[in-house]
């Protein structure tokens, strides 16, 4: 294996692929989550709501596979991360699951009956199904900066000792608001692009509010990380191609250490700058009624925000708050080189195919849904 590509390189590539899948999730599923979270505000009548939902109904299912694939890839490429993070964030993951389960049934079942209470019930379910994952995934991501209480026993079994209150740490809640506002921004730029008036006007307004909230919380979190939050840094020499055993290094917690990488590689500042510029751009474009430009700017926000988080954490994947030296890093929590190489080949073959047919589907579904042409866009779910 090592003749084709060395283990350390494969690990960095798989760290990048995990990031790409997360971005794919935020950019595609992000808009239907964000739209789901706000559609009852954007649409006041049943017809308005149906117009909004019909812009995402044909595509949300494919979009959500980015999330499923992210989970599957974490399992295959970063099994320790998959095992420890999901059991370590048990309650958050359970709530995300319940919320995500509401969506497939909500989209399909809402239109089956015309009864107003039936539809109002599913509207609540779809709102929760959009808002809860958007919020909780940010809470979970922020918990990576705080560390999760876990360690390994003599059989290398992950032992999680935390309670669910760690999820309610103020920094974690701040992370939740960042991701919620980021996805609501995304969903509303999409709505501004895809629906007619009066929903589009409301979406432009909600999108601008979300952009402002995002900017404030994103910059606030950055200042917190800089001034007060304990960051993790590896203090021993690590073998980047060594076996995946996360118990053989030493780690220190130092205030501001989450910015070490930015000090070391100043080019990384491009990521947070792009997030800020993107949010400002989305705000300005929405104000100027350039929905297409706003959607593009919002895509930039999604990608740049995730990159910012990834750059700050690197090489950490999941720090341990109780046993920092047993934290999971890129260098000691991956699959074997053989599995990484095999999966890389599969990704290189299939991801372009996926992007091609996804692009084709979006092309077939192009066009704006208005109250006048709504009937043509409502399919036979």
């Amino acid at each position, binding site marked *: 294996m090592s003749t084709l590509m060395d283990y350390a390189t494969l690990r960095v590539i798989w760290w990048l692929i995990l990031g790409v899948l997360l971005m794919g999730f935020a950019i595609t599923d992000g808009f239907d989550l964000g739209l789901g979270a706000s559609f009852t505000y954007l649409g006041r009548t049943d017809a308005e709501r149906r117009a909004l939902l*019909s812009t995402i109904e*044909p*595509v*949300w*299912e*494919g979009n959500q*596979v980015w999330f*499923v*694939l992210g989970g*599957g*890839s*974490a*399992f*295959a*490429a970063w*099994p*320790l991360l*998959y*095992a*420890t993070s*999901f*059991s370590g964030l048990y309650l958050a*993951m*359970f709530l995300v*699951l*319940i919320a*995500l*389960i*509401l*969506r*497939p*049934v909500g*989209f*399909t079942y809402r239109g*089956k009956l015309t009864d107003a209470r039936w539809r109002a019930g599913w509207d609540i379910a779809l709102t929760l199904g959009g808002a809860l994952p958007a919020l909780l995934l940010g809470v979970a991501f922020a918990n990576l900066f705080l560390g999760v209480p876990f360690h390994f026993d*003599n*059989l*290398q*079994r*992950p032992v999680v000792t935390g309670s669910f209150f760690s999820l309610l740490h103020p920094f974690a809640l701040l992370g939740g608001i960042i991701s919620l506002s980021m996805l609501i921004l995304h969903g509303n730029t999409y709505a501004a692009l895809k629906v007619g008036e009066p929903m589009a006007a409301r979406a432009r307004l909600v999108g601008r509010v979300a952009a402002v909230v995002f900017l404030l919380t994103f910059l606030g979190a950055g200042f917190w990380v800089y001034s007060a939050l304990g960051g993790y840094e590896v203090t021993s020499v690590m073998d980047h191609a060594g*076996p995946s*055993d996360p118990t053989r290094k030493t780690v220190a917690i130092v205030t501001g250490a989450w910015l070490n990488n930015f000090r070391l590689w100043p080019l990384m500042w491009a990521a947070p700058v792009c997030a800020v510029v993107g949010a400002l751009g989305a705000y300005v474009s929405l104000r100027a009624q350039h929905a297409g430009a706003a959607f593009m700017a919002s895509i930039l926000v999604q990608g740049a925000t995730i990159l910012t988080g990834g750059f700050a954490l690197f090489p950490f994947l999941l720090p341990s708050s109780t046993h920092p030296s047993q934290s999971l890093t890129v260098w000691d929590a991956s*699959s*074997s080189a*053989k*599995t990484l190489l*095999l*999966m890389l080949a*599969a990704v290189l073959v*299939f*991801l372009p195919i*996926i992007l091609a*047919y*996804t692009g084709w*589907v979006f092309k*077939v579904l192009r066009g704006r849904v208005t109250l006048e042409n709504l009937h043509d*866009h409502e*399919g*036979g*779910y």
Partner: protein
Amino acid sequence: MIDFDVVTLSRLQFALTALYHFLFVPLTLGLSMILFVMESVYVMTGRVIWKRMTQYWGVLFGINFAMGVATGITMEFQFGTNWSYYSHYVGDIFGTPLALEGLVAFFLESTFVGLFFFGWDKVSKIGHLIITGLVALGSSLSALWILIANGWMQHPVGARFNYHTMRMELSSFSEVLFNPVAQAKFVHTVAAGYVMGSVFVLSISAWYLLRGRNVAFAKRSLAVAASFGLACSISVVVLGDESGYLDGENQKMKVASIEAEWKTAPPPASFTLFGFPDVAARTTHAEVKIPWLLGLIATRSIDQPVLGIYDLVARARSRVVSGIEAYSALQQLRGSAEPPDAGVLQRFEGNQADLGYALLLLRFTDDPATATSQQIDAAAWSTVPNVPVLFWCFRLMVGLGLFFIALFATAFYFATRHRFERHPWFLKLAFFSLPLPWIAIEVGWIVAEYGRQPWAVDGVLPTFLGVSRTSVGNVWMSLTGFVIFYSALAVVDAFLLVRTIRRGPEGLGYL
């Protein structure tokens, strides 16, 4: 050290969520294929009734599909939340087919299912047919990758333990891919899903015919279900799971337990048609046997013995003893500096195939290296799954499988002769058969997965060890949440299905 409340509750949660997920997935598999058949007829003949059939059965497909997708998300993430040691221990191998399922199959199915519903006026006739075909292909490919993952749990090939990382690692992907157990399971499970789809269409069409509603529509639907169902029900039984039972110790133990064959009988073994397995006395009362049959099915020969439970336990015991060697060598390797002592390494390498059997001892002692003889006996006997449950579930499954062949053969005969009107008894029988494929498939799952116990991965990792070391409160909370939430969804799903069927194609504007 092991919290058995967490183990029990996590297993219960996994079983309930998997059984529940499996109420919907096989129907998705079957209906998607039937939709493709119906739409093909439409494209080839241009007769609009076939398009209406595709659309109407598509509505029912959609109600069911949503539930399959919703409950499938739970399955993928549950390994991480509740089975974290399992995920770490075998993720290097097991995670790969799961990720490939997403890349190769689930993306395809989910991206195109939207256009199946919303694309009728947006793409050409042929284009839409291809979309329907891709949805059907995607769902069957999903099943392929999931069953490759599951086949590996039943018969773990192509993997080795790495003491540096304390886990199993991939040694040959092609062995994992072409695992005979996985291949057999794939054919069996997908064909079973096609049977479920066929019974679904057959029963509901029969109900319409009994009421004299939508006769042209129902007759055509029934003909598709009858011919597709006949081919598939024969496949389920003939190309059934049986061929996979020869590989691996646990599969042998499963056969012995299904047959409640305690002592190895002289070959060719007879098949126990009925009897009452007695676990306490380790014997089966009041057996009714068919000579030769088991030997023929299980070994495809008349001179090979089918090993009984006592002999298999004796073999397990010697593997526990050898596993203890591997376990104590592993403890020394973990404590020592690199490079390790050659003797210790050799002792580990020589016995590492049995390491999993030593892990069985963790149920009885904290230190397998110092296990007593009684503890070793207990560990060896713990490799026997629940014999009466397997015995009865297997018989129920096979009985139903044979019934489906008879049902479809009759339906096929009547369909070709256009004789349904003269045989309302058959239409009634077909209608009341509606719940049967669900029963067959659920008990089939129990035979396969409950029969895999005590192993999560056969001979490699005991189930009790695979759980997350999380709090009992957490698992209670999620289990209760799933039960309440899933029950509510089941009510809504059933309500919508019944309502859509009652309204019929004419009520939905498809006629």
